[in-house]
């Protein structure tokens, strides 16, 4: 999202590989890259500028959006800055969480395409049970628990893990997340995979991004709730630190269950994160 000469080259390559007409949108904060980089806007006084948009025609409904934030440093836009002398001052001119969500919600796959089960092509998708009885990783409602979107409802989530094993050697990724029992073909929920990257973990991600670690109301969730006019809408759970921490720690597992039991679900926003990339060696066998 942050602009640079390298990113411009990446965007051109990505657009070229997309073959026919991908709409490219470049967004600059109205205050200008130099002013936004000073991070003079503190939390609570944040301003979302009207972007200048340079679009190209597109017949396929696909879009690439590049946010150009020059000089903000290696800092998550819209999050508290840490070590500003080392990684930069950061900026609150935009909030990366909110901008990502506004982007993602424009795109959805048909449910049969989004159903991650079975084996296909280059990516082998495995469903494993790590926390409860084996479950098939299919977006189906829990048979015994019909969905009722009440804030007082006690909901049990089936927990599963999804492993993405590349056909290319040496790279593997495993992500734990919940399959909400009330999800059905008529009530699809978005699934966002957040790859923190090597060297980061869930606790750091919480600090950088402002996302909640244990389901407490945080900035993104609060803002989405306000926008959709529903209080206590959705939950965001951080389920552990680096290298599948939550899989090994009983206390985190219990805590995850506790939070899941008292939080309602909402179409607007439900996601779970976990630690950074798991070493490929752990996937052996």
């Amino acid at each position, binding site marked *: 999202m942050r602009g640079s000469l390298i990113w411009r080259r990446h965007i051109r390559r990505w657009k070229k590989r997309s073959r026919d007409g991908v709409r490219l949108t470049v967004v600059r904060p109205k205050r200008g890259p130099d002013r936004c980089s000073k991070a003079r806007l503190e939390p609570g006084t944040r301003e979302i500028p009207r972007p200048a948009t340079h679009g190209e025609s597109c017949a396929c409904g696909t879009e690439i959006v590049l946010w150009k934030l020059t000089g903000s440093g290696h800092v998550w836009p819209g999050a508290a800055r840490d070590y500003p002398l080392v990684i930069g001052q950061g900026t609150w001119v935009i909030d990366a969480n909110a901008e990502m969500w506004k*982007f993602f919600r424009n795109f959805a796959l048909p449910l049969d395409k989004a159903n991650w089960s079975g084996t296909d092509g280059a990516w082998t998708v495995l469903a494993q049970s790590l926390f409860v009885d084996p479950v098939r990783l299919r977006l189906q409602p829990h048979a015994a628990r019909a969905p009722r979107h009440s804030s007082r409802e006690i909901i049990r989530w089936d927990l599963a893990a999804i492993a993405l094993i590349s056909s290319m050697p040496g790279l593997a990724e495993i992500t734990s997340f919940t399959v909400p029992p009330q999800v059905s073909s008529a009530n699809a929920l978005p699934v966002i995979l957040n790859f923190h*990257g090597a060297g980061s973990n869930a606790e750091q991600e919480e600090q950088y991004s402002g996302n909640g670690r244990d389901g407490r109301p945080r900035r993104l969730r609060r803002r989405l709730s306000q926008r959709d006019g529903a209080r206590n809408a959705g939950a965001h759970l951080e389920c552990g630190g680096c290298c599948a921490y939550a899989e090994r720690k009983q206390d985190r597992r219990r805590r995850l269950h506790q939070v899941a039991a008292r939080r309602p679900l909402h179409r607007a926003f439900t996601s779970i994160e976990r630690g950074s990339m798991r070493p490929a060696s752990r996937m052996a066998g």
Partner: protein
Amino acid sequence: MMAFRLGIEASDRVAAIAPVEGALMVETSARARPMP
């Protein structure tokens, strides 16, 4: 990089990607569909 890889190799399973940092260092054939 993982986001880019998913965008290319699992474009029929992933609706969209949003890389924040990281280089496009994946050399594969064209994806199945234009990826936002």
